[in-house]
């Protein structure tokens, strides 16, 4: 939940650039496959940072390291004042409670209804919450993504765009401060992709979240990004606003932005 104090801090720091995630010298390899090599990046409070890179360049590995699903070989990831790779399961849980993660494949539990999907994260974190409150939160999250009527449907009955929205609702239900999106528009038609992008922008405005968005969809980048980081060969190759990178003369950068 965003408190009064948070709102103030947010307004004050829009220009001050207070980092909420600091990634330093991150290395991760699988056997001989060096996926991340001394990767550095910062996510500032209230911004949408888009990470662009080829398929297989390690973008998913990067955000899985941030949420603690993978352990980097070396390097630090500071978030809420803690170094993620050092944390144990219990400490990770408290971090994850404040951090949303939207999976590339949505990862909706297909044996559960939409309602049960949304309740699943809730009943963990707020075990004491009474049924009425839970129901209220579920409906609020679904209304936010415009799909209140699907509450009793199974994931298999939903279209790709609807699944993405439900996955987003499942993330939003805990009112996260930071959201990590893994290719939110990949696999969707351009129109649905734009709808999802606008929704992400709405979320940023409404809940004052800071987000890392992984994408190579130019429409999505244009709509959602405040800043873009280019991941090439496991390093942060270039960094700047969408407009700045689009005008860049670098050949490798141009490949993505033409």
């Amino acid at each position, binding site marked *: 939940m965003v408190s009064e104090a948070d709102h103030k801090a947010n307004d004050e720091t829009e220009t001050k650039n207070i980092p909420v995630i600091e990634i330093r010298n991150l290395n991760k390899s699988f056997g001989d496959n060096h996926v991340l090599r001394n990767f550095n990046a910062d996510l500032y409070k209230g911004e949408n940072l888009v990470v662009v890179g080829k398929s297989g360049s390690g973008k998913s590995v990067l955000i899985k390291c941030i949420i603690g699903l993978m352990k980097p070989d070396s390097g630090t990831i500071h978030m809420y004042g803690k170094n993620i790779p050092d944390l144990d399961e219990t400490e990770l849980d408290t971090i994850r409670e404040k951090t949303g993660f939207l999976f590339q494949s*949505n990862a*909706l*539990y297909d044996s559960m209804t939409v309602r049960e999907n949304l309740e699943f994260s809730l009943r963990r974190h707020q075990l004491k919450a009474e049924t009425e409150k839970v129901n209220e939160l579920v409906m609020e999250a679904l209304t936010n993504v415009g799909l209140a009527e699907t509450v009793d449907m199974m994931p298999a009955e939903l279209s790709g765009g609807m699944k993405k929205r439900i996955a987003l609702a499942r993330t939003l239900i805990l009112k996260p401060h930071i959201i990590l999106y893994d290719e939110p528009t990949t696999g969707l038609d351009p129109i649905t992709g734009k709808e999802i992008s606008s929704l992400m922008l709405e979320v940023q405005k409404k809940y004052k979240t800071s987000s890392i968005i992984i994408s190579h969809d130019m429409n999505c980048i244009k709509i959602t990004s405040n800043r873009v980081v280019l991941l090439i060969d496991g390093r942060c190759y270039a960094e700047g606003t969408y407009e700045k990178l689009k005008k860049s003369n670098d050949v490798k950068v141009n490949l993505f932005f033409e």
Partner: protein
Amino acid sequence: MNYSIFPDQWKTFLNEAGAISRFTGRFFKIGFKPPYEFRELLKQCFYIGYKSLGLVGITAFIMGLVITIQSRPTLVEFGAEAWLPKMVSVSLVREIAPVITALICAGKIGSSIGAELGSMKVTEQIDAMEVSGTNPFKYLVVTRVMAATLMVPVLAVFADAVSLYGGFLGANIRGVVSWDLYWNQVFQTLVYSDILPSVFKTYFFGFAIGIIGCYKGYNSQKGTEGVGQSANSAVVISSLLVFIIDLIAVQVIDLLNFT
């Protein structure tokens, strides 16, 4: 040709065995620590136990029937036809019903757990659980392994009863054995040392089926093909384990002089 005394197949086999042991170790390490997932456990018991009743019942019934029919000629040769219920009930209760139940469960439960967890793994649902603050090992693996361990013995006892009933019908196809006489003979023959060890070993069958199904699913490789492979090898390995455990159980029971 590689004639090394330590060929690659052995390496793969030992690696796999080591990984399964570690997986089992993890089960014992976190399986009995709170919080417990009672609701999921009950749900799994329902799926594993109740939903297998029909299949186990039909198979056990047919086994009881055919074993009785097949045994009759040999006994007739010795003029020992009256021993039919005695002989059949011992082989059914000691060996056939538990092992057939376990094999049916290895096929039905092992494959469904393997496929279910496998598809949850490749579609990142297991990661999603972890991110949402639930220990997926506890929620998915511990509940399924416990449910299989608890339910397979129940199914085996059910199979004992049904197969003995099949035996009664089988005995009546050619000869005439009254209901009372049949059950009298059966219960005169069967003693606790026939029933208890054979039920006891089904706990191990159930545990092996649960662990292997979960291990294979939980470690599924990327892609839909990986899910199929997980389900398939879950069935193969757990069926094989059922026989190995059975072999060991027979030796142990023999040593303990239960007979």
